């Protein structure tokens, strides 16, 4: 007689998880960020298997609703869902056609009526994901809303940095570029400061948002923006940095009169090997992609030894797996058998 010992599946019910949508990191507590990063480790393990597929999200439907072109974020979410066995569909549409036709709210409700469990939304306008979240009980994941937020990118950045340097407290993280229009920078500021990093944002004065300096807002609103250091001089910003992140510069900024030329920008703000000499010896170099090599980042640096840019991409899938899983509310992470 074989003793059937029922093996209780290892519970992955998270210690701390309260979100039903992921809109930005501003309302994440440190313990929730830790939950995501810890789970992402397990997901990374799944992802690195020979056959990277577990049925954790079988029967779970993820709709990627992309109103703005995106290759990597879209692919990253598609893969994350598929690795976990979810049904994933992707809808790409332009905002202009939506303006004429079906409203955002209608589209989201329609997706929910088709039993979408999670909607991953990319939109050119700030707040679009918030609007969606107000009008559906499907989980909304903000995959970028205008210049506002890109929380999944920020979480993968946190995960990647943590893998290399561990505790972020007191570490100097420098973001260089178009801070004013960067949803990545905004979300990263929340996540990095929550974990105790010293965050420096650096760019030409025309690309720095107003109100970020603590003195630019009333004292009662001190906590309304993350505490960051503002620099317009790149060498001073990079001095002693543990992490340097170059941000993508859109060429529209020149046409918009915010910059004299891309050439001048690269002269004063390009992350170069020479400038990185001021960083700590074992610094990390990051970029959220897609890169304009020769503009915001020198090609040699992007592929240099400090660069963890490709790792960011791989980790992106793992972090998004963790987020989909957490939002699904499921508590078992099976799949040992597919190893």
């Amino acid at each position: 007689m074989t003793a059937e010992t029922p093996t209780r599946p290892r519970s992955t019910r998270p210690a701390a998880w309260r979100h039903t949508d992921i809109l930005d990191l501003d309302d994440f507590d440190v313990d929730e960020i830790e939950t995501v990063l810890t789970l992402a480790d397990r997901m990374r393990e799944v992802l690195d298997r020979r056959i990277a597929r577990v049925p954790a999200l079988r029967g779970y439907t993820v709709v990627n609703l992309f109103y703005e072109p995106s290759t990597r974020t879209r692919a990253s979410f598609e893969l994350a869902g598929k690795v976990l066995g979810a049904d994933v569909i992707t809808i790409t549409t332009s905002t202009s056609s939506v303006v004429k036709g079906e409203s955002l709210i209608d589209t989201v409700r329609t997706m929910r009526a088709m039993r979408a469990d999670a909607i991953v939304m990319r939109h050119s306008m700030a707040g679009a994901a918030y609007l969606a979240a107000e009008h559906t009980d499907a989980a909304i994941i903000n995959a970028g809303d205008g210049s506002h937020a890109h929380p999944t990118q920020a979480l993968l950045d946190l995960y990647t940095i943590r893998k290399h340097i561990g505790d972020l407290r007191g570490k100097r993280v420098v973001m260089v570029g178009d801070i004013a229009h960067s949803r990545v920078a905004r979300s990263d500021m929340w996540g990095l400061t929550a974990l105790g990093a010293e965050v420096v944002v650096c760019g030409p004065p025309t690309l720095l948002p107003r109100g970020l300096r603590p003195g630019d807002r009333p004292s009662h609103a001190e906590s309304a923006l993350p505490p960051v250091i503002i620099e317009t001089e790149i060498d001073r910003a990079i001095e002693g940095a543990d992490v340097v992140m170059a941000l993508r510069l859109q060429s529209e900024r020149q046409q918009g009169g915010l910059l004299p030329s891309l050439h001048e920008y690269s002269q004063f703000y390009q992350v170069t090997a020479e400038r990185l000499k001021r960083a700590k010896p074992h610094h990390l170099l990051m970029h959220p992609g897609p890169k304009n090599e020769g503009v915001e980042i020198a090609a040699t640096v992007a592929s240099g030894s400090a660069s963890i840019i490709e790792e960011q991409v791989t980790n992106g899938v793992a972090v998004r797996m963790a987020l989909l899983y957490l939002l699904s509310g499921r508590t078992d992470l099976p799949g040992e058998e597919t190893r």
Partner: protein
Amino acid sequence: MATLAIHNGRVIDPALGRDGIADVVIVDGRIARVGPNEGDMVVEAERIDATGLVVVPGFVDLHTHLREPGFEGKETIRTGTAAAARGGYTTVCAMANTRPPMDSRAAIESVLREAEKSGIVRVLPIGCITRGREGAELAPAGELAGAGVVALSDDGDAVSDPSLMRHALEYATRWGLPVAQHCEDPALVRDGQMHEGWVATRLGLRGRPASAEETFVARDIALAELTGGHLHICHVSTAGSVALIAAAKARGAHVTAEVAPHHLTLTHEEVGFGDDYRSIHYHTNAKVNPPLREEVDIAALRAALRSGIIDAVATDHAPHGQGDKEIEFDLAAPGLTMLETSFALCMKLVHDGDIDLPTLIERMTIGPVRAWGLDIRAGFDGLGTLAPGAPGDVAILDPNAEWTVDPAAFASKGKNTPLAGRMLRGLVVATVFGGALVHDTGRVVAL
């Protein structure tokens, strides 16, 4: 003879310097007598007991979007004037950004006809500054004046071309019309969605800087001084604009100005925050142009309203449908429905000790009338006052009554207010227009 006697209220009539307990007697739609116990002298009358209440001339709004013709889904002359009555307003100046816009005699006459037919209070039309509100050629100011407009405005948009604005001011002097400018430089606001500042940064929304208003205020004051034209600055919203207007008035320039209740009381934080700064929202009902600003601006605007640098409160009542607001913030229509909350919002200034009640009433009655010279124009005798012979227009107020804003109860079709659910202090108890009760909360007692 139809007679209405309003007994025993505190009568505040700033035009005549009256402030005391008195009766107001209205005969055949016009003010007959005001004074202690005057009501007791009339034998046959409808009587209202205003004991414990404040009795003032009906409010005059220089800036109301009635939306008809063209946008009847947002508001009609009927619903807009009903909202006015509920707000204590007995005269509203109808903005020109209708479809078609108010740039011809025929358009003006159609509004006046509709107002005559379905209006609940008085409607005074405003004509366009430029043909089609396109900012390219002057609208026919003479023809519009003949049709009865009280001012010219392209409100919603600024007249951007400085040369055209110069000529608009110059040309309008022939008919004595104020040119009411929406001061925001479109080249500087671009596609800005809210006040440029730390809230916009948090929300990732593009900003409309205060300087976009101030550069146009400064420019248009210079043009008014060049031409001798009458510049009226709509919805002043920044401390910098206040300083420019103060200096212009000190030099004797023919400049007048209005401020909206929301700019006196609400900041840009309305757009993004609820109870704390931890989470955000995108509150399209707080999207308005010019945008809600900062505490320093509110302080400057209140001081300017008190001192008279700003002549009038004007609502900028801008009703929109749900579909115009329940949408991405960038696509949402700017504007707030305001007629029915205006008095209560403005009472906050009195309760905060920033202005006294008679001065506030001045800025809502005779202040706007004088700003546009209606007190010296034929056909408007006594408007904004309780002088004998004046229109029998009265608002009866309880400055201390508290009530909760419920947009569903608005007479306006526009439910677009950021104040929903909020407790306000200051109630329009009843409104009398031409001697007839047009709004009544049931709190006035017929004697």
